[in-house]
């Protein structure tokens, strides 16, 4: 099957463009049920195609998610932003697959109200919660002054996300704003810090920023090297950029 190679910058900068064709042939890039490996099998992973377009997010969802990612881990001189690291594509792939469907989760009803210590109790699995919560956020903000989240200034976006995380934004009966923010933040951290095969942590950039050595198999030489900087660059399951054939 042919796929639509989309320039990475186009995906990142213009989420709207990239996801204008959701559920296109790029679904063929997914292994098994949306993960880069097959669930419940011992199998070598196949890296996510970084050029591919979104398969789960709609245009509105992509715009929100990219804007939220850019505030959760913003761009600055310290290291990559979540967007630069590829987190929106990571999120899309996770939600498109088994994880998004909550395939391993217990999703039978009845659905009750969490006392506060009973964990995830949404009737929606992750992908569904993104869908209803982002829609509810859009509705909420349009009632407020009209501008959608991604068109607001950074300070306003930050303030909104803070309120969301504190449970101060009422998104109606269907979506618990605080539960959604908790999930979003967790997923952004997953994408930012996971192995690059999943589409985030592009070029091992987040690992380079903090100094994590990655999938290094033998650390014996460094156990007793007290206080010494670790001498090797990070490496992922698929190796590292310097190892790939150029051209």
């Amino acid at each position, binding site marked *: 099957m042919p796929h639509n190679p989309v320039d990475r910058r186009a995906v990142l900068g213009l989420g709207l463009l990239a996801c204008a064709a959701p559920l296109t042939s790029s679904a063929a890039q997914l292994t098994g049920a949306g993960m880069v490996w097959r669930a419940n099998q011992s199998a070598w992973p196949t890296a996510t195609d970084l050029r591919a377009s979104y398969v789960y997010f709609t245009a509105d969802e992509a715009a929100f998610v990219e804007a939220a990612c850019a505030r959760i881990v913003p761009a600055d001189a310290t290291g990559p932003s979540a967007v630069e690291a590829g987190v929106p594509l990571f999120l899309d792939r996770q939600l498109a697959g088994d994880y998004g469907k909550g395939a391993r989760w217990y999703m*039978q009803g009845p659905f009750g109200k969490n006392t506060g210590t009973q964990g995830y109790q949404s009737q929606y699995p992750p992908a569904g919660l993104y869908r209803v919560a982002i829609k509810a956020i859009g509705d909420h903000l349009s009632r407020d002054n009209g501008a959608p989240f991604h068109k607001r200034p950074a300070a306003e976006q930050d303030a909104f996300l803070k309120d969301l995380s504190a449970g101060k934004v009422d998104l109606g009966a269907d979506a618990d704003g605080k539960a959604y923010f908790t999930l979003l933040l967790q997923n952004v951290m997953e994408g930012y810090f996971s192995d690059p095969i999943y589409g985030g942590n592009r070029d091992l950039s987040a*690992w380079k920023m903090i100094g994590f050595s990655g999938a290094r198999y033998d650390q014996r030489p460094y*156990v007793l090297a007290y206080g010494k900087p670790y001498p090797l660059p990070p490496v992922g399951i698929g190796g590292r950029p310097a190892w790939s054939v150029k051209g």
Partner: protein
Amino acid sequence: MATKLPSVDAVLVGFGWTGAIMAQELTEAGLNVVAIERGDWRDTPTDFSPAYAQDELRYYWRHELFQRLNHDTLTIRNRTNQTALPMRQLGSFLLGSGVGGAGVHWNGQVWRFLPSDLKARSHNLDRYGKAAIPAEMTIQDYPVSYDDLEPHYDKFEYLCGVSGKAGNLKGVIQPGGDPFEGPRQREYPNPPLDMPYAPTLFGKAAAELGRHPFPHPAANASRAYTNPLGVQLGPCTYCGFCEKYACGNYSKATAQTTILPVLMRRKTFTLRTNCEVTKINLSADGKTATGVTYLDETGQEIEQPAEMVILSAYILHNVRLLLLSGIGKPYDPATGEGVVGRNYAYQITSSVNVFFDDKILNPFVGAGALGTMINDFNGDNFDHSGLGFIGGGYVGLMQTGARPIETHPVPTGTPSWGADWKTAIARDYLKTTTVSTHGAVMAHRGNYLDLDPTYRDALGRPLLRMTFDFTDNEHRMSDYLTDRASEIASAMGGREIKANPRKGSWDVVPYQTTHNTGGAIMGDDPKTSFTNKYLQSWDVPNLFVLGATAFPQQSGYNPTGTVAALTYYAADAIKSRYLKASHQPLVQT
């Protein structure tokens, strides 16, 4: 109609740590044994390839090695007046599934309980008087002593090739070891692992404060080792993917790396994987287990008759299978009567982060049980007079590999996202370490397990319901441990520390430990225990229940050393006495 198979000497339900140990022991005694495991067959070369085992997302956050909750889970609540809701996603504990059970992804922290832990009620009554144990605290003595278990602890440590330093050899305190431990007959089979920078700083600070630091006993091999069964382990490479992950290096002791190469060759042993036991079958008078019923991979119902039934499915599944099979009297918290589900307990943990400016710690270099510990505040190793609690726990600095999705602590006042968060983790990740505490949970009248009235599993059977909360005793004890940890953390000389005490009710979300205990406890009295000291059911003498199910309460140490020792203790009694008078109780009432 279920297909009925020919009878065997013993059938084991579940094939994790306890199942593998018992199968090895019983086949050694010449028995014909069938083990039934509901998860997959998995082994080091085929399933735990080091080429891709170091995948934090896949194995920890996406739970590839753990129980699939869409098949079955449990429901949870803190108190009886709440409605229990299903644990929809794994969190506080990570249930195992598949050959090797949770042992595949354990850390390898191998502890012995203190002699006084095994006498929790009488010891505390003797030392602190009646007022020390509130009426609602239903703790009990174990029906076995430390001396009973010592040879069996030793056997497990040698099976696993534990790396450590003895602190008490036959009553003589040894420099460099844990001076508080019970006497052991001989040294650990392997020397301690090499100790990285951060745990060394902890040890120095602890010693300066008058504490007694020592290297954590680790089932992560510090050198090449051949165990008494002739199975070999390779030296640990400190790759940092141990707890919650499978080891691709034959360095972490698991059923696969210590027992299976020998057991799987025995003609008298059969393992059936992807087969789920649904019921323990009883004779008409309810006094004999006739075998088990299971569903095979194709969903076909099969009956496996056996002379002896051994539950080794992990504590929560053991208890649920007893309840679903109608064995034993279910516990009722209103009356305090009944034994199945009684005395469910857990672990209480907390931590203190230490942030340095000038010390590169490389926290990703690690192993599951690598660290420097103190037991000065464990069990009754310190005077509890006036403290308002009993029990204790260990404090230590473990370097298990700071996989970054899970581990990126930030100082007090730093938000959990945004520009300031980013600056903080980029600055601190390599220079931050964490002191942790790991405390006992006493049994409490209101903490128990039963069947949920509403929620069902994929086969339509009731889920297990867990009603559990920390009580004042746990919170006071844990706060005390957190304070002691903070003292040492402060003395380590960092820029700042941040204490993370355990506050409020037990929450199913953050991972804490997979140290669930109780629910079919061992004891001397059939009214308050499900099994006798040999893990033999009082009601059904050819039924044995292995695992932390037997613990009357949970002490301040990780459970598996004691779980394994109790399994060997029971196996000994089965081999030396039970088989000579089969179906007879080993303890008369």
